[in-house]
Structure formats: C-alpha cells, structure tokens
C-alpha cells in the first residue's frame, strides 16, 4: 500500500488522531524549550576568533613583534658573556670542566652540544694559553666557554653561542659590563664574546686575534 493509498484508506483514523493532537501545535511553547547555547560554545568561539586574530597579525609584516621589542626581554650577548666571565674566571680549583690537555675531546664535546663546528683560537702570541672549557646554560640552549690565562694569572673567557632570537647580526663591538670589558660579534651562525678584566687596547688586540682566526 503506497502512502497515498494508506492516506485514503485510513482518512478517518488520521482525522481522529489529528483532531485530538493538532491543538498541541498551537499551545505556547514552554520557555524551558528555548535552549540557551551552552556556555562552552561561547568560549570555543572566542578562542577561534583570538587564534584567527593572532594568525592574521603574524601574517602582516608590520604587525609582527619587532626584533627590538623581543630583545628587551632577553639579556644581550655581551652581558651574558660578562656574567659568565665573572662567575667562572675567579675559580681557583675548577675554572674549567675539561682541561686543555684534553683539547680534542673538549672541542668535540662542545661542538656536539652546540651543534656547531667549534675552533679554539690560539692566543699565545698575546701571552694567553688555553686552560680549558666548560658547557653553560644559555638563554635558549647550551653555550661554550673557553678560558685562557697568561703568566701573571690574568684570565680571559671566550663565550660561544648560537645566536639568540633577539640577537642582531653585528660586527666587532665593544661593551663594558662593570669591570669586565667585552669584545663581541655575532654572525649568522654564531655569537662570540671575549671577556676579560683587561684594558681596552690590550683586549682589543686579543679580540682581533680571535676574530681573525675564527672568521675566515
């Protein structure tokens, strides 16, 4: 029996049922049936809007956070290097983790940790000999520190790091952090800082020596 045949054959039954229940159609709908949206939906929607907003913001160059703005939050390379120098250079018994006599091991180890092919400059022409080196925590990864000492016991440290997000590529620069003088430069792959409590001309000579050996 098709729908149409059923409708004709059972018109009386349909009418009976409709007459009885159709009045429900015009009854006022109870207020509770007008459901409010669940609150989590609003939060979910807000989250989507915020995410889209951030996405749009980042995709428009002039809305991106500038490197300068980001740099405010991080410590500049010369300051990090000077602090590390101040912490480790006065150390009498443990100035380094690995001594110069294991130089091959030292370079291999630190190169692996920094994921950089490190070179240890030779500074004996300026009277400084390698003591050794250690691994330090940087702002966002490991940092290498090599320490040198001259015949009078003066120490220099060479701080080697991968460039931090906020570090701008820079040529040879000088910075004074308290009594520590720092010469530093940052290239695409690496940041270097030579720190010591030396006068500027002397440190400059040593730094130039380092720079020549490291920058081909």
């Amino acid at each position, binding site marked *: *029996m098709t*729908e149409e045949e*059923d*409708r004709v054959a*059972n018109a009386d*039954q*349909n009418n*009976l*049922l*409709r007459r*009885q*229940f*159709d009045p*429900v*159609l*015009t*009854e006022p*709908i*109870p207020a*509770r*049936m*007008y*459901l409010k*949206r*669940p609150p989590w939906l609003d939060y979910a929607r807000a989250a989507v809007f915020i995410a889209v907003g951030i996405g749009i913001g980042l995709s428009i160059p002039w809305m991106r956070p500038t490197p300068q703005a980001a740099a405010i939050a991080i410590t500049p390379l010369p300051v990090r290097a000077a602090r590390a120098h101040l912490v480790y250079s006065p150390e009498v018994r443990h100035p380094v983790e690995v001594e110069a006599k294991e130089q091959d091991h030292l370079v291999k180890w630190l190169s692996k940790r920094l994921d950089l092919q490190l070179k240890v400059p030779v500074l004996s022409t300026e009277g400084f000999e390698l003591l050794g080196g250690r691994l330090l925590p940087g702002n966002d990864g490991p940092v290498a520190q090599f320490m040198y000492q001259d015949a009078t016991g003066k120490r220099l440290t060479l701080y080697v790091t991968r460039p931090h997000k906020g570090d701008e590529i820079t040529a040879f620069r000088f910075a004074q952090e308290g009594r520590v003088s720092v010469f530093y430069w940052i290239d695409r792959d690496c940041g270097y800082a030579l720190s010591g409590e030396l006068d500027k001309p002397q440190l400059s000579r040593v730094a130039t020596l380092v720079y020549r050996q490291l920058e081909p």
Partner: protein
Amino acid sequence: MDYNLIVPYIPNLRRYARALVGDRDGADDLVQDTLERAVRKFHLWKPGDLRAWLFSIMHNVFVNQLKARKIAPEVEIDEAVIAAHIPTVNSVDVLDLQRALLCLAPEQREVVLLVALEDMTYADVSTSLGIPIGTVMSRLSRGRERLRKLMNGETKSGLRVVQ
C-alpha cells in the same frame, strides 16, 4: 550551531510526543531531552532533512526512556481492561483514543503517529526510526488495524464490547 533552525519543529515534536507518551508532562520531558540532545549532537547533523533527524533523536531518547523505566514493549497487553473503558464506538472521547494508542506496541505507535500526524513518507519514517521500509509498512498496517479494533471496542477475542 543555530538553535533557531530547530525551534520551528518544536510544535511538531510536542504533538508527536503527546500522542506517543500520553501525558503532557512526560511528553514535554521527552521533547526537552530531545532538544538538548539535538543541540549536543548538532555537529553530527548532515545538512538534509532536519525534521527526520530530530524525530530520529526523539526516537532514540524515547527508546532509552522505555529501557530506563523498564517498560518493555508490551505487545500482549490485556485489551479487555482497556476496552472496558470504551463504551461505544460513537462516544469515543479523547481519553479513550489516548488509551487505545497506549495499547499499541510502542514501535507500532511510532509508525502510525509519524504517518498520521506528520504525514511522513515511508522513507522518512524509515530514516527517523532506523528501520527498513518494509518494516515501516508492516508495522503501519498492523498498528492501524489494531488501533481500529481498539477504537471499535473489539477485544483480542474479536468480541465487541457492548453496554
């Protein structure tokens, strides 16, 4: 989701629920549960027949309610008790029609009401209740026949109840 899409169907859902459940409060509870479930499951609705989708949700809620109340589909109900309340064919009142409906097995009641009240096609009923069209047709035919007998005051033995 847009709840405003669902609102227009509320009167139809209430009419059907009233006939299906019998009492106003129970019927509106069924509608309420259906609406809330529809909102939760709205992401599962594939744009298409929203009415059939809503009635299928009501069907599921209804079946769950029957299970929860441990009201097994009662096919073999004692119709003589019901029929005793139907004095004559000509003085059928609303209460009696409601009682007669409730004597139908729930699965027959659903099919009869969807066709009679909602004017659904067999295909719509099949979608709403999740049963094959052949089953829709056999339940409709048996449901209608049974309802007719109940309304005519006939008991299972085929005797007409007379005053």
